[in-house]
């Protein structure tokens, strides 16, 4: 049963990165779009993400619930030592969620929009940045349970070049996902070309910030290269991701939005796989080397079992409904558009 739970945990994280990430990316892209194109970007994005907006962010909650029910020790250790970046991320989530709704549902569209829009754009950037920091800090081995003073217990646990570079990398991934996604949502050839150009740029940014991660890992003496290239499955995943990136570059100009999305999804899946495979079943690496593992720090058998059943039963309800929702609003619309 524990493996059912682990698969759900991993899948929720992946889906949160993919769907939530594309969603954050929408705000990030808007931030980096020239004023002239901003309104257009916003409209296209909103039509695309509006109906599934709520559902995208549920994956984070599912992951958190799985953690505190199934792996309480892991949840609490992270909560204690990464308190500060977690709070920053939460502030980002609050600001973004509310600003999104305010700007789309305010009865009057007036100067207030000038308040909502920047809040929305900047919080779209900040939230994944801290998410990246949190993810990186949990594997960077900087969490020190023996720390005596405030700074080394609660600040240096996350404030280092490696975590920051992963934060930047996460932000660029979000932007990348959003541009790839939006290519299929455009209604004119001109804006399609515009977003293709943009997608190409975000790919460069992703590659550049990815390189930064390796550099930062080197500076912080984190054996990232060993982790990723050290074992065969991780290596295969990275090679597969690179190949698909090449295919993506070729496919960018062809009118194949679904293929592009699949490729982008594939690449992120492979990156997450490579990043988590080497440590499995460890998920939080501590300074003293006594890592927190999904297997040895799982909750009692009955708790895991009922969690697994709750998740299985839940997915029987959720998946068909979600697929139907996406079908109705995405596929049908696409067809209607092409006629």
């Amino acid at each position, binding site marked *: 049963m524990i493996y059912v739970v682990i698969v759900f945990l991993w899948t929720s994280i992946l889906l949160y990165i993919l769907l939530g990430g594309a969603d954050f990316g929408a705000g990030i892209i808007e931030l980096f779009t020239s004023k002239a194109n901003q309104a257009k970007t916003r409209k296209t994005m909103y039509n695309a993400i*509006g*109906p*599934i*907006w*709520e*559902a995208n*962010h*549920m994956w*984070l*909650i*599912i992951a*958190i*619930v*799985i953690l*505190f*029910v*199934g792996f*309480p*020790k892991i*949840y*609490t250790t*992270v*909560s*204690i030592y990464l*308190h500060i970046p*977690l*709070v920053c991320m*939460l*502030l980002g*989530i*609050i600001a973004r*969620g*509310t600003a*999104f*709704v*305010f700007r789309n*549902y*305010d*009865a*009057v569209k007036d100067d207030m929009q000038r308040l909502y829009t920047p809040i929305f754009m900047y919080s779209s950037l900040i939230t994944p940045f801290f998410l990246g920091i949190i993810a990186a800090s949990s594997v960077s081995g900087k969490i020190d349970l023996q720390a005596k003073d*405030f700074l080394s*217990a*609660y600040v240096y646990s996350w404030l280092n070049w490696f975590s920051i570079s992963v934060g930047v990398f996460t932000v660029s991934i979000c932007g990348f996902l959003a541009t790839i996604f939006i290519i299929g949502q455009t209604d004119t050839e001109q804006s399609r070309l515009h977003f293709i150009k943009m997608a190409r740029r975000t790919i460069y940014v992703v590659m550049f910030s990815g390189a930064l991660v390796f550099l930062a890992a080197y500076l912080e003496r984190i054996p990232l290269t060993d982790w990723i290239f050290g074992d065969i499955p991780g290596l295969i995943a990275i090679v597969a991701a690179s190949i698909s990136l090449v295919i993506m570059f070729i496919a960018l100009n062809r009118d194949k939005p679904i293929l592009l999305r699949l490729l982008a999804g594939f690449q992120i899946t492979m990156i997450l796989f490579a990043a988590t495979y080497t440590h499995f079943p460890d998920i939080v690496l501590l300074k003293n080397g006594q890592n927190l593992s999904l297997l040895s720090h799982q*909750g*009692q058998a*009955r*708790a895991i079992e*009922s*969690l697994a059943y*709750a*998740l299985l*039963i*839940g997915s029987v*309800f*959720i998946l068909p*409904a*979600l697929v139907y*929702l996406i079908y*109705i*609003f995405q596929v049908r619309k696409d067809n209607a558009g092409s006629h």
Partner: protein
Amino acid sequence: MDDFLAARLQMAFSLGFHIVFACIGMVMPFFMSVAHFYWLKTKKTVYKDVTKAWSKGVAIFFATGAVSGTVLSFELGLLWPTFMEHAGPIFGMPFSLEGTAFFIEAIALGFYMYGWDKLNVWFHWVTGVIVGISGLLSGILVVAANAWMNSPSGFDYLDGKYLNIDPIAAMFNDAWFSQALHMSLAAFVSTGFAVAGVHALMILRGRNVTFHSKAFKIAAAFGTVAACLQPISGDISAKDVAQRQPAKLAAMEAHFHTERNAALLLGGIPDTAGKKVNYAIKIPGLLSFMATGDFNKEVKGLDSIPKDEHPPVAVTHYAFQIMVGLGMLMVLIAILYFIAIFKKRQWLSSKWLLRLFIAATPIGFIALEAGWTVTEVGRQPWIIYGVMRTADAMTPMPGIVYSFYLFTAVYVSLAIIVTFLLYRQITMVGKLYDSSLKQTNS
């Protein structure tokens, strides 16, 4: 302020904030569905207008409820890690099921909000009802988790270890039913009165009267019926508390001495040091009757409970008085409204009845917050009743005071913006939603 107090207050504010949005998010979809049903049946556009206006409101509240809820699920660990480390696996069942309920709610809301003119009309209507049902279900599930903190079960506690966990038994603890029932009704009462009050104000001002009258009727119907049921369910809760948490009952009633034929106190200022209540009206025997169903039975007082396990008496007592007082007031308003509907139709068009509802706009929510204060403060000093103390559950990280200030500032500004937004929704009804007006204008 010390960190411990700050942490408790931060938790209380976050929950107090979330609960308002959660209640509206779980009750408004029902109002909406009723209006929507009338539209489908009667084809009177005013009902469609009401439905659409309300669904905008629901979307605003849903998102605010969702983000504040997301914050809560992290806050439990950020503030109370020791609690979560032990409680997580035990009371996690409702939370894992809740995930499903939320998901269904979010998906159904997606269908509903974007499905006008796209879906089969009845399928579209059903998705609205599903939003309501799954919202209510998630409310019931979280309350079951909270009830477990009041009435821990589903595990054996031996030498500081939590053994033989049974998450299902933990979910169906002794308190879940009475709390879930009382809470669900409270959600209808508070939302019903708040929505009715707002529309009553608009009728009184003579704005879009047909629109607001229809909306008022639907909200008032839900609010008043639930208000009349609330004392019955409150009585069930009180009997329940008397059994499982005598210390809480004693604090609610500022009942210092164990006695038979115990009197119910109305008002009064508890004097904890002197162990007495000043200036209260006493109704002999009624407390015994409320707690046990018998005027002569004994009711445990605070003197039967070790001193270091006493909850704060004054806060609990005042909160309880506020809840019951406002509850009774709403029953009264409900009765007047029923008389108006069934006997004195002329009252319905009179100003005083509208004014009464306008004055009652916030009181449901005040009663709701007061009720939660009773439940949560009355459980102190325990976070898991009789098992773990709140003080032992706290995070070791210093400086929670600053996080408290930060979150308070955020919540206050959010509350202001949401109020502003709703105000604009309501004043713009004429332009945006009232199609009878639109036609005459164009």
